[in-house]
């Protein structure tokens, strides 16, 4: 597949990285020469310097021969124009654009086939707000990913010493928690994914990914020693676009909100949009202000200013002053490792969310969605099993899967099966598997090569 990525920022870079490592031909267009140098040094892709909304540049990038255009520059307008040019020059290409503007997002009809014809519009803020809402709904988890339209959740969380599962083997844990079916899909230890088997022992500070039915997730989190009391009071630091989106969602859930914003005019905008929340004009990293507003009673503090370092500081401060949990908005992947070790409970990463969303969309065949897990070393894939596929109609233990791949759940009609070695995947079952990034091309082969033959 030939892919043109417009914009070599963090999102563009990561998308290009993933796609080129999976064997696609990737061309990156950006105005910034420096940025492109960095890209050319680190990735096996072609770089073109110039504007992504210039027909001339797109022609040199051989847009007419490309299968996909991903426009992820900072400017909505450039992204839209690039996609528009793409639909003129190359009829069949898949078009993906990052659109930040809320007003544009509301009126999605302009993006449909008859107008701009953009196949996927992504609003990073919206995506990350959705992720945070999942966390609020399932307190205790550090990340929650939806599968099967939300009926199955993949929960990621850190283990601390309170957890009674620490030091036990996986097969024993299964015995300890009989009432709920769940599957430990992946364990991240020291930043490296481990493929769990029955004999793997869980250690303190492991980061677990657990697959389970939505209604059981809270109980399972409780079993692993997580505090799952429902969220009632939330602080938000920062009053930009993200904060507004987030507040609106939280208000709908009836959560008591306090928003702290430095700038007077931003406070006014917030006040005009929100009805129930308390809007405070001040500094989110000021100890006095936080104390004054009873931060010790807060269930969550979510720091979403534009300043990543300030977000981390605000979260740490709040934690020290007694906030139960904290989430920081952090765009840089480099910081993500750090966060959990210094005691921040969750990360809101709009770029990561964007990358995830794009990956969901571009996986081939009958794969419904795919989500990168934990710094993109592992990935969860959701797909429909085909009759002709190698994996159907035989016990799981007989299936040859690439190293590091685990079948996490099978959904047959209305039943959710958390599989064991003897389970069998039947045609048209919905299957969720967790695998290492390096095994993705092989997985795609197993799942889709037969598909071409079938159709």
């Amino acid at each position, binding site marked *: 597949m*030939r892919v043109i990525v417009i914009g070599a920022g963090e999102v563009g870079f990561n998308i290009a990285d993933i796609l*080129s*490592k999976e064997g696609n*031909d*990737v*061309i990156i267009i950006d105005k910034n*020469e420096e940025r492109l140098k960095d890209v*050319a*040094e*680190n*990735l*096996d*892709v*072609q770089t073109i310097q110039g504007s992504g909304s210039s027909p001339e540049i797109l022609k040199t990038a051989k847009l007419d021969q490309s299968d996909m255009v991903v426009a992820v520059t900072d400017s909505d307008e450039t992204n839209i124009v690039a996609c528009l040019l793409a639909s003129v020059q190359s009829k069949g290409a898949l078009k993906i654009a990052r659109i930040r503007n809320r007003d544009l997002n509301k009126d999605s009809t302009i993006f449909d086939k008859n107008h701009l014809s953009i196949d996927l519009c992504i609003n990073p803020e919206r995506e990350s707000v959705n992720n945070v809402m999942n966390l609020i709904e399932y307190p205790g988890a550090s990340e929650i990913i939806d599968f099967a339209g939300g009926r199955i959740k993949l929960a990621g969380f850190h283990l601390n010493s309170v957890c009674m599962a620490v030091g036990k083997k996986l097969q024993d844990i299964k015995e300890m928690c009989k009432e709920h079916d769940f599957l430990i899909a992946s364990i991240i230890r020291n930043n490296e994914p481990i493929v769990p088997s029955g004999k793997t022992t869980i250690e303190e500070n492991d980061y677990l990914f657990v697959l389970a039915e939505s209604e059981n997730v809270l109980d399972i989190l409780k079993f692993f020693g997580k505090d799952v009391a429902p969220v009632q009071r939330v602080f938000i630091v920062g009053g930009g676009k993200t904060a507004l989106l987030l507040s609106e969602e939280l208000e709908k859930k009836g959560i008591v909100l306090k928003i702290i914003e430095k700038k007077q005019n931003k406070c006014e905008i917030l006040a005009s949009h929100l009805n129930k929340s308390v809007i405070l004009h001040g500094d989110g990293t000021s100890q006095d202000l936080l104390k004054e507003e009873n931060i010790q009673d807060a269930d969550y503090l979510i720091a979403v200013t534009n300043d990543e370092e300030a977000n981390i500081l605000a979260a740490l401060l709040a934690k020290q002053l007694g906030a139960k949990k904290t989430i920081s908005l952090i765009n840089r992947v480099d910081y993500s490792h750090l966060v959990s070790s210094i005691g921040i409970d969750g990360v809101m990463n709009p770029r990561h969310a964007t990358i995830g969303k794009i990956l969901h969309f571009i996986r081939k065949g009958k794969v419904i969605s795919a989500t990168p897990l934990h710094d993109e070393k592992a990935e969860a894939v959701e797909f429909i099993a085909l009759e002709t596929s190698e994996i159907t109609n035989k016990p799981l233990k007989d299936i040859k899967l690439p190293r590091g791949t685990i079948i996490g759940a099978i959904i047959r009609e209305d039943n959710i099966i958390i599989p064991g070695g003897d389970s069998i995947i039947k045609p048209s079952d919905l299957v969720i598997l967790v695998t290492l990034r*390096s095994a993705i091309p092989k997985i795609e082969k197993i799942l889709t090569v037969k598909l071409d033959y079938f159709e």
Partner: protein
Amino acid sequence: MKVKSILYILGAFLFFLGLAMIFPLAWALYYGEGDLKALALSMLITMVCGGILYFSFKPDENITLSHKEGFLIVATGWFFAGFFGALPYVIHGVLPSFTDAFFESISGFTTTGATVITYIEGIPHGILFWRSLTQWLGGMGIIILSIAILPLLGVGGMQLYKAELPSPVKDKLTPRVTETARTLWIVYFIISTVEFILLLFGGMDVFNALCHTFTTMATGGFSTSDASIAHFHSTYIDAVITLFMMIAGINFTLHYSVLVGNFKSFYKNSELRFYLGITLIAIIIVTLNLRSHIFEDVGSCLRYASFQVVSILTTTGFTTDNFDQWPALSKTILLLLMFIGGSAGSTGGSIKCLRILLILKHSYMELYRLVHPHAVTAVKLGKKIVYPETMASIWGFFILYLAMTVAASIIMTALGLDMMTAFSSVAATIGNVGPGFGGVGAASTYSEIPILGKWVLSFCMLAGRLEIYTVMILLIPEFWKK
């Protein structure tokens, strides 16, 4: 520094180099002149050494290389090529001294064409074929060939590609580096085939046609006879070889665009125009100069002048006449051409037209700025601005190139050579040209140079072929600091 990965890649590379010896082996078998054993043994040694490195350092995961490692692999890879490529000469005994054999071998791979063999006709065909083949392999780049053929490098390939590609602008033709490397080699192969067929039409036998195709396309300059191309006494062959030297001196990216039907980018290329312009002017001056001194008729003047100008400018180094006897003006022109060389991204060596062109433009811009102190200016290449950083790297290259020439010339004169021989031998080796003037002129060889001198010149050839930086970077202590 990932020593294991480096050794593993070098192992694969050596194995592959050994494999290439199968071709001269076939010729040795065909002619049966007693060089079979030497070639077979060299092949075995090279492949076994390569195999041992390859299998004992096979990594578990994909290799990613930093650019430091890229430089190290390319420089040592070329050194290994020189070392193992010398084995056939030593084992067979045509060049019993290892210094001579290494000189000949590195002169082959770097497409210099400077030889220490005094009686070429006496060399068995198998070894002669190996000698020409080393040039062809080195022409487009042995590392680039390895990237194209061995699928063991992903991102690392880019670092190697950049360290070997003879051009200040390291663009890729296609999104994937293996694909780019393959494309370049395919273009190289196609043009070589055309030349081979044309040479056959000129009455050359298959062996000579192949050898000369190899050394023309690589702008190498090894011939199969002492008299070089003059041996054939054919205007047709002179013309064909002149044409293909010219072609080999053009950026292969441009050849690619012509092959895929994009003629516009070909004739609009400003480096190409500059290259053609220099060739034309030099040919006219030398022709006029020869007319009054050496040859009587204009036809001969033009024939010998154009052949020699193109041969020296593209850094090939073939000869059809002893240009050492030519008048001073012609000799000066030829000596200066040695410092210009072919286009960037061609198989030609030396400083390259692109750099000279940009340096001239930059110098003009400085003058312009003196006239208009407030003018906003930029060095442009076609429609694109050349960034000051690129410009600085070009100036750096230029200065280093000259500094190395000066330093090596001083060493050569210290070894007792006369001034012209010393200076031109350095200019001809660092520029990968081949023949120089005086003691290393068209009618002589490098066999009389003292041993230390041969090593200095070998180093010059390697540094010249890898565009100075790749070799020099290994010599500064900063590179080895952790």
